[in-house]
């Protein structure tokens, strides 16, 4: 019996135990009810605006899982949302509101791009070079995302600057600066679009199960692996215990030997690293080049909703990420099949977040399960 095998088994046991936990059950119920309620309101608005609500909902579903290529698109969005969702969850779990995942994601992807573009000419033009290139890109993305996350962490820990605001400002700054660098220095001669040149063909993830040029099951694998690692760290290591304890009750964490300032910086660094990794995946798997960040999807913001829906639990991020990936894919499908403006789906996501923020609403509405559950 290998350690890994026992590890996985006990992990599975723990997950099962968790799922039976009343407070987890309550959260699942709250998440489901919040989502259903938000969708219901969305459908009502659709109907009130003179569109066909039934068609709206059925297209939403078809667009997500209706056929193989829709499914691939949904899983692609889900992979990104799961990764960024875990990044958010790590920070929120430690009581730090990292709203800057989008910026860290942008910076991480940019670093990965730089690595690939500058190192590729130095390596033989063959598929073998993919391995060192991908490794380098990943490392750079982790480092850049981590550093860009650490910055607001330091500002909070040592200057008391509210991280909600600093991270939002840093999002704007990341997009602006990356755009400038890209347009000024990385745009190929003669091209108009602020895009870098295409990565070499061999840099990418093999499609495997799905024949999509922008989704590989390996991408989903990376996301799930990250989830497992983060879960293990949070649940099974002393560091994870420190982190989660800081989020629950900082004085107790401090009493038990945690340096609160350092913990903030570390948390933000880890969160930023995961966001950076998402950026690398985005550049490598989805784009295959890099572009103006202002045109990127707002994975980093949607991730907040994902994480909240999952009660900031890394395992819960997986179903939540799948749900939001589905909403995303369905929303896009609606965009080019129905007249209903697809922004509506963004609004529905906002409603889900709003409802998830107020569990008391559902408790008051009679969703009482046996235990009070915990509020953060």
């Amino acid at each position, binding site marked *: 019996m290998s350690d890994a095998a026992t590890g996985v088994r006990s992990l599975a046991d723990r997950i099962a135990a968790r799922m039976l936990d009343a407070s987890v059950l309550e959260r699942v119920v709250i998440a489901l009810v919040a989502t259903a309620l938000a969708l219901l309101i969305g459908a009502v608005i659709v109907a009130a*605006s003179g569109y066909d609500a039934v068609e709206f909902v059925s297209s939403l579903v078809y667009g997500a899982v209706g056929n193989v290529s829709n499914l691939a698109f949904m899983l692609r969005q889900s992979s990104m949302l799961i990764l960024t969702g875990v990044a958010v969850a790590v920070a929120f779990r430690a009581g730090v509101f990292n709203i800057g995942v989008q910026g860290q994601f942008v910076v991480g992807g940019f670093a990965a791009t730089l690595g690939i573009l500058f190192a590729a000419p130095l390596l033989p033009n063959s598929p073998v070079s993919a391995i060192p290139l991908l490794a380098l890109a990943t490392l750079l993305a982790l480092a850049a995302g981590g550093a860009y996350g650490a910055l607001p962490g330091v*500002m909070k820990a040592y200057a*008391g600057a509210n991280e909600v605001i600093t991270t939002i400002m840093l999002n704007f700054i990341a997009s602006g600066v990356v755009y*400038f660098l890209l347009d*000024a220095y990385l745009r190929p001669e003669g091209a108009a679009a602020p895009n870098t040149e295409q990565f070499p063909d061999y840099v990418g993830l093999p499609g495997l199960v799905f024949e999509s040029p922008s989704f590989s099951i390996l991408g989903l694998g990376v996301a799930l692996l990250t989830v497992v690692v983060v879960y293990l760290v949070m649940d099974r290591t002393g560091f994870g215990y420190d982190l989660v304890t800081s989020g629950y009750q900082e004085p107790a964490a401090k009493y038990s030997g945690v340096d609160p300032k350092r913990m903030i910086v570390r948390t933000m660094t880890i969160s930023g690293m995961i966001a950076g990794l998402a950026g690398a995946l985005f550049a490598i798997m989805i784009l295959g080049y890099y572009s103006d960040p*202002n045109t990127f999807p707002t994975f980093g913001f949607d991730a907040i909703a994902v994480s909240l829906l999952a009660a900031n639990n890394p395992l819960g991020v997986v179903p939540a990420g799948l749900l939001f990936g589905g909403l995303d894919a369905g929303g896009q499908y609606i965009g080019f099949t129905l007249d209903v403006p697809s922004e509506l789906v963004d*609004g529905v996501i*906002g*409603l889900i977040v709003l409802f998830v923020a107020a569990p008391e609403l559902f408790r008051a509405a009679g969703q009482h399960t046996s235990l009070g559950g915990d509020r953060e």
Partner: protein
Amino acid sequence: MSTARALLDDQRTLVGALVALVAVIALLLFVDLPGSDLVTVGALERALQAATPIALAAIGGLYAEKSGVFNIGLEGFMIFGALVGAAVAWLLAGDGSITQAHLWVAFVAVAVVSGVLATLFAVLLIRYEANQIVAGLAVWFIGLGFGPFAATVLWGGVSSPSLPNIDTIAVPVLAEIPVLGRLFFDASPLVLLTIVVAVAAWAVLFRTRYGYWVQAAGENPEALDTAGIDVNRVRYATVVFSGVMAGLGGAVLSIGIGSGFTGTGVTMVDGRGWIAIVAYLFGNYNPLGTYGASLLFGAMDMLQIQLQTIGISLPGSITGLFPYVAVLVVLVGVGYTRVPSAVGESYDTEE
């Protein structure tokens, strides 16, 4: 003791900085230095305009936070305000052209609609004890989604057609005063109105019983409760007020000094709600200081424009980041601003 001193000192630095700013501006205006190209009466006029939506939202947010509720949804309320203002003015006009009366009615409508939305938000926060940060973010998301959605339903695209805005009003006689006349008395009435609002907000907060209650609700709700005042009622009032003010700030953008609603990207509000939060932190929860801070951010915007106009060439994509960087510098510099101690905690009377 030292914190209190620090606070006082902080106030003084702020006032000092503002005085210095005004002095420099005056100097540049009246003396013919190279800087006089940079700071023109026109630039000041536009800085005052740019400060207006920020200041309105900031003063609202200040009241909410002072009473113990962090309304981080200001940006979202601004989006709704901008949209509703444009929509109501457009709908009122029907096929005809939009008149000044339509615009003013639209302003009132924005106040009402924002008030209703903010009441719902307040119920979630206060009665259902929603996490203030998360719920506030949700308001932003909802604004980002439903704002452009509603625009599409109304206008067939995420933006409205071009709309007229509130005319400037020239106050007879006063408008003739050099510089000041043009800045305040031959300007959009909204600029003047916002200054009046800032002064009134200051007086109410520090000179009336309601102001005392607001302060106590955020600092020690129990003390207020035992003094016989319903803490949550005070908080409801401030949260609704903050929503209304942010909504009006948004309306200023779309029909006050702007020309309709733009819903692409992060919408025309473009982060001003976030800057408003920083403005009242920088203003140390003092409505006058907050107005000054808003003006500073407005001036920052104008500075980067003026730099471009006089041909100091920095890439536009970089100068555009000035305000955001300024926010960071301000936050790191005055990060120790004393936040009311009960912010973020819901309050239940015992039993």
